[in-house]
Structure formats: structure tokens, C-alpha cells
């Protein structure tokens, strides 16, 4: 897959900007707060229909404007040339179009542009909170199994309703109604089970690939292991109904605590992705540098899995992260992707890049929402 160009209008701090990609590496160079990450965010939106920085479309539309437009032209191996269009409005209503034809279901937009994001924040994937790891997993699932986006949205709505009920009970606004609660429990467990199964299956597929990359990069014989760890007894080989039952049993056990705290304590919104190296939790294992190696292995595994499943090479978006990797890891990354993977890189300075990255790259200077020139 190759992203040929991108056009932004009234998006974030961009008044109007076109950008033509010519090589396999593009570097966006600029001071802080000039719009480098905003440009990557536009690609993220086209890929997964959401931004990791905001859930409100109003934030994405340029201040003082009502409507933002994104247009991208790309070439896929399987479907040829495609034009993706997206209109964002301050009031939250979106429209998407493929080759100029409006899509009734936004879901049909997912999986057209595949990408792997790797930002400096991801360097905390091992040490950071579990929500970071869930978010990472969800972003990958949405690309590989578009129906997952629908399940995630449904689960979010059930959770909101159930939490509102628990909160009202805690505040004494409504009495505990076992009939009604049982129905919210059932919906939470049904959709929650489906999310948990998909997450678990994905980690199983990712595990051997990540382990192989981890060994290759660390040059060692340590074994990396990824497992999905829900807050209830979860055996992912069990029948779906058994998993759902286990979910419901744990909800029963937590019922009192949930009413006291006024929030849902069991379900995929609380689950953990456990990373271990030689059976030791990765967060306790090794130095910060070793943990970075692990994150790099995860990202390369993500890239490889998308490639294997879709048959297309995804885009790699490196936000501020390359300068944070030492030269050895930069080279390992470059070795892995070579010229095959189209890569867009943001940075405030070129000084810490290995010369190999610069030699073949197209470099744009970004200033205050405008690409002011090529370097």
C-alpha cells in the first residue's frame, strides 16, 4: 500500500494543505506545536475513524471554521487506486466517501488504509497503565476485524448505561432493581465476552511474531509472552457460553462492591494485557532500554501481522519516537522495514538520526499549519 497524497482543509491548525509523497520515507521537521502530529492524526482518522488524542470532532476542526475535509489518494495491491474522503463537522456529524461515493456505513471505511502508529508515548507501553495496552490492541483489531469497531461502540454504550444506573443507586436516587440490573449484566457479558475473545485471539496470533522479533533485536534467547488477562476466570478455548457464564459469575461476586463504588468493575474496560519475559512481568524485568526493545518488537510484530492478514504493507507513522531510539535500535528498525514500508516521521531536529534514514528521505519543513518548503 502506498499513500500518494493527502489534502487537509480546516483540519486542526491547517488552513489548507496538500502534500505529495514521493519516496518511501517522509520526514516532517518543525518546532513544537507547528502541526507535525496533526498531520499524522489525519492519517490515523482515515485509517481507524478515531483519534487517540480526542473523541470530539470539534477539536479536529480548525478554530473559527465549521467543517474540516480530508482527502487521500492511495494505491493498494488488491484494489488499485483509491480516493478516501472524510468530512468532519463541529457538531460531530461525519461523512466518508470512497472514490467520490458517499458510504452509508462508516464501517466500510475501516481497513482501507492500514497503518502502524509508533509514538514516543508507546515507549511507555510496558510500564504505563493497562488502558494504554488495551488502546493499542483495540487500534489493531479495528483494522483487522472492522466489526470489532461496532462491538466496541456497543460495549461502550452498555457500560455507560450500567454505570449510570450504579451511580444512581449509590447516590440513593433509585432503589436496586434486580430485574433491570440482570438485563444490563446480560448485555455487558454478551458483548464483553465477544470483545475479550477477539482480543485474546489477536494476542495469540501476535505472540510468536513478537517473540521472534524480540529475540532478533535483543540478540538473546529470552522469551516474550503476550496474554490477555480478564478480571474473570477466562479460558479462551472454552465455548463462548461458558466464558459468558464465568463473566456473569464474577459480576455476581462483585455486585456489592459495584454498588458501593457506583461503577462497573468487571469487563474488557478493566482487562489487562500481560507482557512477560521468561515468565517475569516485563515491567519488572530489565532496564528501560530493554523495555524499549520489547516495544519495538511489538510494533514490528504489528506491522508483520497486518501484512500477513491483509496482504498489504501498512504505513508506519513514527511520531517523535525515532530521535528517542539509540542508533542501534534505529538501525534495527530500518533493517526491518527497509524501503518496503512507507514511513512518515515527525521530529524537531535531524541531529540524532542515523545518516541512512536521511539519505533517501523526503524532508518537509512544517510551520504553523503550513508546509513551508522542502529541506
Amino acid at each position: 500500500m502506498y499513500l500518494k497524497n493527502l489534502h487537509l482543509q480546516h483540519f486542526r491548525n491547517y488552513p489548507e494543505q496538500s502534500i505529495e509523497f514521493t519516496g518511501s520515507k517522509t520526514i516532517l521537521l518543525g518546532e513544537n506545536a507547528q502541526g507535525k502530529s496533526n498531520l499524522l492524526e489525519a492519517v490515523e482518522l482515515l485509517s481507524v475513524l478515531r483519534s487517540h488524542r480526542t473523541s470530539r470532532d470539534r477539536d479536529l476542526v480548525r478554530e473559527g471554521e465549521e467543517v474540516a475535509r480530508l482527502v487521500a489518494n492511495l494505491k493498494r495491491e488488491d484494489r488499485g487506486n483509491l480516493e478516501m474522503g472524510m468530512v468532519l463537522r463541529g457538531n460531530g456529524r461525519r461523512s466518508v466517501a470512497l472514490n467520490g461515493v458517499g458510504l452509508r456505513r462508516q464501517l466500510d471505511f475501516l481497513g482501507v488504509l492500514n497503518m502502524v502508529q509508533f509514538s514516543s508515548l508507546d515507549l511507555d507501553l510496558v510500564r504505563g497503565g493497562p488502558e494504554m495496552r488495551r488502546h493499542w490492541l483495540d487500534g489493531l483489531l479495528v483494522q483487522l476485524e472492522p466489526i470489532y469497531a461496532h462491538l466496541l461502540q456497543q460495549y461502550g454504550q452498555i457500560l455507560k448505561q450500567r454505570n449510570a444506573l450504579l451511580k444512581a443507586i449509590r447516590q440513593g436516587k433509585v432503589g436496586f432493581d434486580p430485574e433491570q440490573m440482570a438485563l444490563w449484566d446480560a448485555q455487558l457479558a454478551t458483548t464483553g465476552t465477544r470483545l475479550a475473545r477477539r482480543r485474546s485471539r489477536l494476542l495469540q496470533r501476535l505472540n510468536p511474531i513478537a517473540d521472534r522479533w524480540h529475540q532478533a533485536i535483543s540478540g538473546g534467547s529470552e522469551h516474550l509472552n503476550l496474554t490477555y488477562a480478564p478480571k474473570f476466570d477466562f479460558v479462551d478455548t472454552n465455548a463462548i457460553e461458558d466464558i459468558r457464564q464465568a463473566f456473569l459469575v464474577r459480576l455476581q461476586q462483585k455486585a456489592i462492591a459495584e454498588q458501593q463504588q457506583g461503577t462497573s468493575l468487571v469487563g474488557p474496560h478493566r482487562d489487562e494485557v500481560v507482557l512477560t519475559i521468561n515468565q517475569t512481568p516485563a515491567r519488572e524485568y530489565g532496564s528501560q532500554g530493554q523495555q524499549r526493545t520489547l516495544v519495538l518488537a511489538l510494533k514490528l510484530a504489528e506491522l508483520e501481522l497486518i501484512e500477513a492478514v491483509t496482504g498489504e504493507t501498512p504505513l508506519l507513522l513514527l511520531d517523535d519516537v525515532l530521535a528517542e531510539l539509540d542508533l542501534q535500535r534505529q538501525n534495527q528498525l530500518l533493517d526491518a522495514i527497509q524501503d518496503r514500508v512507507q514511513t512518515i516521521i515527525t521530529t524537531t531536529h535531524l541531529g540524532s538520526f542515523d545518516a541512512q534514514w536521511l539519505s533517501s528521505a523526503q524532508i518537509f519543513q512544517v510551520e504553523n499549519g503550513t508546509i513551508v518548503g522542502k529541506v
Partner: protein
Amino acid sequence: MVYTRPLARLTRTFPASPRHWPQIGQRLAMHIIKRPEEEVAALAQALIDAKKLVGTCTTCGHLSAEPVCEICRAPARDDTMLCVIADSRDLIALEKTREYKGKYHVLGGLISPIDGIGPEQLNIQSLVRRVSQTPIKEVIMAISPSIEGETTTLYIGHLLKPFTRVTRIAFGLPMGGDLEYADEVTLARALEGRRDLD
């Protein structure tokens, strides 16, 4: 955005607008202010009349100027069939199909804790009374298959099952909307509710 004072007052005067339609007051105000005065006066009168005269049917909860609505009074309609819907708009939509000859029960919303709506806020007690006290052969739940609709349908289903047969309308593949998708659950539901082609 600066409004002249009377226009600002008009904008604010529109009753608290539905969550999903934020600028309704503003839009209506801008539209109305451009119409001829007679038209606006007629509108004002119509609004007052509607508010004064329209209440809800004491039997089914549908909007009605009489204590008991026309549908509830119609002798030709089947008293033994009851169709449960969320609000009067759904009733109107169903009536337009001219397929249904039974009677209705309007809940006045769906169970939605986010909006502070529980079973007590809906016309559920009156429904149970109606079903338990009159010979009803079948209750058809015709509620959209949303998260809230599902909870409401099942909640009422449990309450009514001891008294009568409860069915739900078959949902085909959903139309329009946001991120909907013909997933397994939807397909299964559509299959369950299948019927022979005439």
C-alpha cells in the same frame, strides 16, 4: 453571534431541546422571524391550542385530545392484540403501513439510566394492568434493537409472560445510522423472525 434581545428570548423560549438536536431553538427562531406576521400569529395560536387540548390517552398513552384516543375507541380494531412501542411517533409509522389491526400501548420512552429513565418513568404499570385484566392473546414488542430497546423489551417481556404470549417484531438488516453492521446477532435475529414468502 449577537442576537437582538427579543430574538434571543425567542431562542431561549423553545423548550429544552432533545439531546441529539442541539441548535433547534436557534434554527426555528431564525426561520420564524422571517415569516409574515399573520403566519406567526396563527402558529402561536396553534401552539397554544395544541398544548391546551392535546394530552395522552388514559388507556394506551398515545397523544390524544380526548380522554380515550380514536384507536382505543375504534370498535373494528382487534382488542386481543396489543403492540408495545416506545413513543407516539412509532405508532404513526406503524399505522402508515396499514398492516396492523390491533391496539397499541405507548411506553413514552425507553429504559435509559443515563437520562434518568427507569421502568417507573414509563407506562409499564398501566401495561401490566391492561394485560392482566383484559383477555389479550398476544403482545407484540415493536421496539428498535438498540441497547436501550433490548433492555426495555426484555424487561417488559418478563413481566407479561405470565399472562399472555409475547412476541417481538423481526428485525431485518438495519438501515442507515452510524457504525451498524450486519453481525451474527443481527443475522440470527433476522432468521428467527423469518416467515414464508406469500
